């Protein structure tokens, strides 16, 4: 399972990472692997605001559809338009070109409450039983 050294994680398999004063958000390598071939990503509109834990989008594979949840509360400042034509980027490069949205968090300190790499690995280990 690949992790991003600069990111923090959620129990619902999203990652978040600072870039300037915004957070970039996507789904983890573990998540993309579990979903298998991703065929469509539904993203919000720029300017929309979501609370932490609220679903802001959906990832569809051939056989499954999963909600994607906000790690922290904030406003969407950008969405990855490349995913419309190339959803497979999420499988190929989940922490890089497969990013989903950028947000301006309501409270930057919320980021520190997220799981670090080790804690996230533990969550995954427990899920797999």
């Amino acid at each position: 399972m690949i992790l991003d050294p600069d990111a923090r994680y959620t129990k619902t398999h999203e990652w978040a990472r600072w870039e300037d004063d915004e957070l970039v958000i996507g789904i983890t390598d573990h998540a993309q692997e579990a979903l298998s071939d991703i065929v469509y990503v539904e993203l919000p509109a720029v300017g929309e605001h979501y609370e932490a834990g609220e679903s802001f989008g959906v990832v569809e594979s051939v056989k499954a559809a999963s909600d994607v949840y906000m790690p922290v509360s904030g406003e969407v400042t950008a969405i990855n338009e490349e995913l419309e034509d190339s959803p497979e980027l999420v499988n190929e490069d989940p922490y890089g070109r497969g990013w989903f949205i950028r947000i301006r968090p309501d409270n930057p300190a919320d980021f520190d409450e997220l799981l670090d790499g080790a804690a996230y690995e533990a969550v995954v280990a427990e899920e797999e039983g």
Partner: protein
Amino acid sequence: MRFIPHTEADRQAMLAAIGVESIEELFHDVPKKARAVEFRLPEPLTEMEVLVELNQLAEANAGTHHYACFLGAGAYNHFVPSVVDYVISRGEFYTAYTPYQPEVSQGTLQAIFEYQSMICALTGMEVSNASHYDGATSLAEAVIMALNVHRRRRRKIVLSPAIHPEYRAVVRTYTQGMGLTILGDGETAHQDLEALTDLTPLADLVDGETAMVAVQVPNFFGQMASPQELTRLAEAAHQAGALFTVVVDPISLGLFKPPGEYGADIVVGEGQALGGGLSFGGPYLGFFATRRKQVHKMAGRLVGETVDTEGQRGYVLTLTAREQHIRRARASSNICTNQGLMTIAAAVYMAALGRRGLRRVAELCYHKAHYAAQRIDALSGFQVVGRRPFFKEFVIRTPRPVHEINAYLLDEWEIIGGYDLEQDYPRLTNHMLLAVTEMNSREEIDDLVTALEEATQ
């Protein structure tokens, strides 16, 4: 035993293999007292006997094979070519299941793909699904789709009062738990025909809270607003960020501009006219078409083209992650079984009639309806109402109540008369909605005119 092949020897061998003495033992999980029930049903009949009974029941009805029919209002007596029944009577089509195993369902899948293509061609849209239950439920699904396009943040729907009353009722049933505000058709108790068919008040109701605006073309009264009026309404909707949905008569599209050309985002309607037959109200066919970019929000099955491991072209159900079996609680619609075989019937109809044939059907409807209208308008006491162009249905004002006239037509002339509009639109007393299709001969129309004249003497 009906349709059950087991012999006593089979049963014994099977019970032995299972390791029980009797079939009853296999029901041990069903509480004894639940099994101690009597089922009071009539004594069974053999095939020979049941057909006698069914024939009696069938003959106790006044069908359009014996009566001239001028009744429309959402279900129409259109010609069904014999090839339609030939195809849908093939066991490989009608006894097949939903094509979840595509390798052994290419017949159904390709037939649906062709249907989708033809509906796109007909409606001027980019994507069609594989059907809903009927035109009314298609409209309800369009409302749900519009809500989802707006991520449930808009809660207003504007409906033209000239949309079929039962369609609007179904929209209200479907959305009764969704906390929506439905506007546009609240004044039908007070409106006359002019007011009911005016599109401008609808544009005035559209605002930033509106998810969708819907109209019907031709409307319930058979009339057609102009393409310019419709385009203006579409623009008003789009400016407010709302979707514009059109309920359309598919036969009219044999002649007239499709809604894709005047700004529709979603096109729905009743496909019964496309080879489905009247069948006392069902099974019918709800077609549903939209724009490419909205396809992920569209409910219903979708067939897509792909290739197999040897590069051969084939068809599969696709974008299935939209559907209930995957999304479950997050699905936009619960639709599972749809109207599969009726979709194939419609495809056969559209293929068999083709480019020229469908146009010819539409022309016949148009000319016959207009001939009927002209002749009736000339009768004293009767008047064709409404200033807009019409297609195959029109409204007449009658000198006596509609139900009295219809009783006379039925009893004396074996004619099934038009629809009494007062039952849905209280201001339209003595207003009858008459439909004329390619199935009505000139002689039938002339008889209708004579009968109407007599009915008022």
